């Protein structure tokens, strides 16, 4: 098995002998190196958040280098992986949304937008002259006709699914484990946007390791009943409050674990 690539991994237009396209798999690895990005479909809206490591230290203007973007009034996206690639996908998303509104006179339904982004990203996995995008895009959208909100994720292969909750980037597996515990499936109690803010902040802080990871800032975007379903950045004050609450809950939980250990003695 040519699992190391060895010659079959040089272009998107080459299959390996066991039927894999290595360039697409490598692009997925680029995403795994990116900052943790999470999304939840809450009962009253959708929350997207991204971990932004403070690479430029104190010299960077805090609001720059955004990872959470609005695509149109009723759609937003968070990207992770190779960020310049992510910017291209976001730019395309904005074009698609604007073009749809122009052609059909209605906001683009999220399922259509996800499909369009998927097929755009997929195109770059077909040509030898191009390389796949090294970015995954979480997309939040509201369908104004069906009155239904949905969360989608497009990966570097161009595949997109609808999600109850999604995670991409570093620490994705642990984040998914936490997200799977939430009652998001049909019939479950669901999670409110307000609670979602704290849950996502908690996951990001849980994944952070002192000394290994750079200090980070959390960027959050949302849409929901409280925003009239328009996608916008979560106000700084609410993000900070959520982080404070998240840290408190994490400390309390650690305290409980410690208590358990003491009792064993």
């Amino acid at each position, binding site marked *: 098995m040519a699992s190391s690539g060895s010659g079959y991994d040089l272009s998107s*237009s*080459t*299959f390996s002998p*066991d039927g894999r*396209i290595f360039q697409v798999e490598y692009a997925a690895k680029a995403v795994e190196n990116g900052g943790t990005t999470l999304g939840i479909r809450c009962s009253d809206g959708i929350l997207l958040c991204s971990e932004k490591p403070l690479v430029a230290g104190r010299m960077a203007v805090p609001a720059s280098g955004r990872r959470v973007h609005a695509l149109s009034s009723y759609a937003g996206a968070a990207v992770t992986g190779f960020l310049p690639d992510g910017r291209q996908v976001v730019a395309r998303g904005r074009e698609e949304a604007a073009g749809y509104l122009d052609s059909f006179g209605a906001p683009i339904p999220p399922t259509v937008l996800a499909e369009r982004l998927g097929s755009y990203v*997929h195109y770059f996995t077909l040509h030898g002259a191009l390389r796949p995008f090294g970015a995954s895009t979480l997309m939040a959208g509201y369908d104004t006709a069906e009155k239904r909100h949905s969360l*989608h994720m497009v990966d570097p292969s161009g*595949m997109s699914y609808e999600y109850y909750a999604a995670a991409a980037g570093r620490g994705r597996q642990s984040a998914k484990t936490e997200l799977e515990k939430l009652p*998001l499936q049909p019939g479950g109690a669901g999670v409110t946007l307000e609670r979602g803010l704290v849950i996502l902040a908690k996951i990001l802080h849980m994944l952070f390791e002192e000394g290994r990871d750079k200090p980070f800032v959390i960027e959050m975007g949302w849409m929901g009943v409280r925003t009239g379903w328009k996608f916008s950045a979560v106000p700084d004050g609410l993000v900070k409050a959520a982080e404070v609450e998240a840290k408190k809950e994490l400390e309390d939980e650690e305290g409980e674990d410690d208590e358990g250990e003491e009792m064993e003695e």
Partner: protein
Amino acid sequence: MSRDSNYDHHITIFSPQGRLYQIEYAFKAATATSGLTSVAVRGKDTVALVTQRKVPDRLIVPSSVTNIFKISDGMGCLMTGMGADCRAQVSRLRYEAADFTYKYGAPCPAAVLAKRIADVAQVNTQSASMRPLASVAMLVSVDDERGPQLFKVDCAGHYLPFKAAASGAKEQEAMNHLEKKAADMANYSEDETVRAAIVCLGSVLGSDFRGGELEVAKVTGKDGKFGVLTEDEIEGHLNAIADSDA
């Protein structure tokens, strides 16, 4: 074999033995990657499609995971292979079918669409810059002149009409199973057609199914609409099959 290895990279180049390795690898990607098997059966006035439904991740909304797609009112397809390639293929199928209807004012026959898509797929096998799509399509419809139609179009641009067809991981076993019943299929009623497809999949995978683990779709009659069966309808067929075995 080692002499051939220089030719694997570029599909425009034949190996000294006259093989096109990239296409063979594309087939492998289409049948082996998803791990799923799909079956289609043609009856007297119905064509039925059956495939396994496997949701890759608990966080994914199950209704967004599907391999069965409607191409036009009376035509549908079952895709096997790499997810994004399958969706690209479906997009093209829908476009071609709609374009035909726009130009000629009539629904696109499955035979015409199959040939068109096969021709498009062939282009990728003869160009250096684009790779073949790792997807196999099974197109179904009931033609008003020729009756039920089932066409299988693959990565290389082959297309053939079938009385029954299978594709995916257990393609060979499924085809063997279907060949034994091929002679009777022309008389199958709607229910018999659907059940024959389900039974084939069950015997090849060696397991019993619940309604939620299968995707089933069919189109019946000349004016029939292509439609996906609900979980209850699938359960109904599964129960009927179990009763007739017992």
